[in-house]
């Protein structure tokens, strides 16, 4: 399978995530779109790891595994982020009874 497909797939997912961040107004959903972006990156990394494993796996097996470890760490970080992020969203919801990001714009100009 040419790596090009995966690049396309990942970039597409990434872009969809970006679009989601752009068009949605609910904090939670925006956050989910961000998660989508992260996963796109993950997918890309894995694809590349296999690509490298194909090309230089004989010389340097680390090249492939590094990326997969990296993905693992990304997931770790993502998990941590989620806990914090949801906490913040909940706090905001507590205070304003809304998750609309545009609902809060006291800070401007």
């Amino acid at each position, binding site marked *: 399978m040419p790596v090009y497909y995966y690049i396309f797939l990942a970039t597409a997912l990434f872009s969809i995530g970006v679009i989601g961040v752009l068009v949605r107004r609910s904090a939670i959903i925006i956050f989910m779109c961000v998660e989508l972006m992260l996963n796109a990156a993950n997918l890309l990394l894995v694809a590349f790891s296999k690509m490298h494993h194909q090309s230089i796996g004989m010389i340097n097996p680390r090249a492939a595994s590094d990326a997969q470890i990296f993905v693992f760490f990304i997931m770790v970080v993502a998990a*941590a982020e989620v806990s914090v992020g949801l906490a913040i969203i909940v706090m905001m919801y507590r205070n304003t009874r809304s998750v609309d990001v545009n609902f809060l714009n006291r800070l401007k100009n």
Partner: protein
Amino acid sequence: MSIIGILFWFLSVLALGSAVMVVTSKSPVHCILYLILTFFAISGHYILLNAQFLAIVNIIVYAGAIMVLFLFVVMLMNLNADSEPHQKNKWLLYIGGIAGGSLLLVIVAALKQTAATTQVVQMNTGDVGLIKNLGILLFTDYVFPFEISSVLFLSAMIGAVVISKREAR
């Protein structure tokens, strides 16, 4: 077309389609479900790439833990389609769409003429993705990042505490 090819296309379409649904569907709950679907599709890709460890972790952590957390929060706030704030000004929608689309275009166009993209990806073989190898690697070479990421978790934990603890006033 080989079975792998079919699976690849199926999963890709599934991932993209459900991702689109995430962005478009009204109700938050649906969004979450579609997102989970997307993650499953991606995990499928991992399996296809023979990255079993990641595939599992992806399902457990993401589709499992994280998404459930999301779902939990949404339920907690009992958000639904009508409580969902929808974008008022349409042009922001279009512009957003165009912007994201052109991002995709730009990157693809940039990669079009490069040689690197002609390389192929090794499918469903190769042992890099196996838990054994990764585990060894993780606890030998990657022990420091592993340890240090605990700091990350601690801070996240404290953060969650600090943020959500009710203050007596």
